């Protein structure tokens, strides 16, 4: 088995499992070839380091931290929304009322179902009309 074949063989076995025959051939080649020995050593070292990282256990309080963070964010959101929404709602209501007023005012009276004031009545000067109070006292 030459080096290229050996390394290909090794790569095609992600979990490092080989048949006993292949294992014997690999071991025999490793005894003879310095480069492949070095390659094998690197491979084993990488596996050892990965295995050590894999064995690390997560902090047992992680779930508590997660739940606390979710709660904090929800409280923050609840506080934040009314804080922004209250003035926004006031501004929107005022703007809406003004808009409706302008809109109502700009609609012709006929369309609103109100009988239009005759021209002669609209020319009456209210200021010169006699007061009802005065008539009553007379």
């Amino acid at each position: 088995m030459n080096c290229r074949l050996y390394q290909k063989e090794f790569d095609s076995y992600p979990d490092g499992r080989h048949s006993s025959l292949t294992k014997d051939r690999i071991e025999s080649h490793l005894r003879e070839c310095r480069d492949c020995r070095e390659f094998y050593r690197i491979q084993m070292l990488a596996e050892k380091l990965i295995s050590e990282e894999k064995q690390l256990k997560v902090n047992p309080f992680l779930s508590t931290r997660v739940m606390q963070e979710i709660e904090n964010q929800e409280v923050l959101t609840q506080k934040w929304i009314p804080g922004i929404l209250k003035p926004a709602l006031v501004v929107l209501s005022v703007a809406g009322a003004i808009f409706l007023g302008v809109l109502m005012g700009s609609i012709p009276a006929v369309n609103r179902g109100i009988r239009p004031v005759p021209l002669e009545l609209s020319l009456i000067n209210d200021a010169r009309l006699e007061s009802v109070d005065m008539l009553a006292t007379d």
Partner: protein
Amino acid sequence: MTDPELITLILQGDRDSFRILVERYQQLVFRTCMGFMHNREDAEDLTQDIFIQVYRSLSRFRGESAFSTWLYRIAVNASLNRLRRSPVKMIFEALDRSAISVPAINEDDPEKILISREHAAWLRRAVNSLPGNQRTALILSQYEDLSQKEIAEIMMKSEGAVESLLFRAKRNLRKRLSSSGKKPEDRHRKK
């Protein structure tokens, strides 16, 4: 209680069910994050962020795949995003931390401990220099012991593509490990 049952309860507002879900999957997510970050504190912070993201987007989980597959996808994307956020900063941080944050070493000899730490940093640099897809396939295979079929489902690729990614990842990792200069023990031997 099964995952779909828990998810239904969570969506109905039962927060305790989410705690159960976190406890069930926290080790899985943490291990995946460790594969990318190689640092306990970063991996734990990222795990926490991932679960918060999961809580917010749980209503978008359609149940077409297993919950764990969906969770792996989120974990992988979040890890890659975290590394992409500031690659230069991450490299310097990883280099700084490599001297103080290493897996447990059962050695008494200070020189052996030093070599082991340098080996860890050496391997991390090599893994981090792999292209994103190769790194993801390698981490899911080596850290999570997932089959090529499971990796294919998570990465939304064919099994053949994953096999090829794993093959290239190992070949590139070996090249990087052999070409990154002298190995730690060789440097110490000369001293």
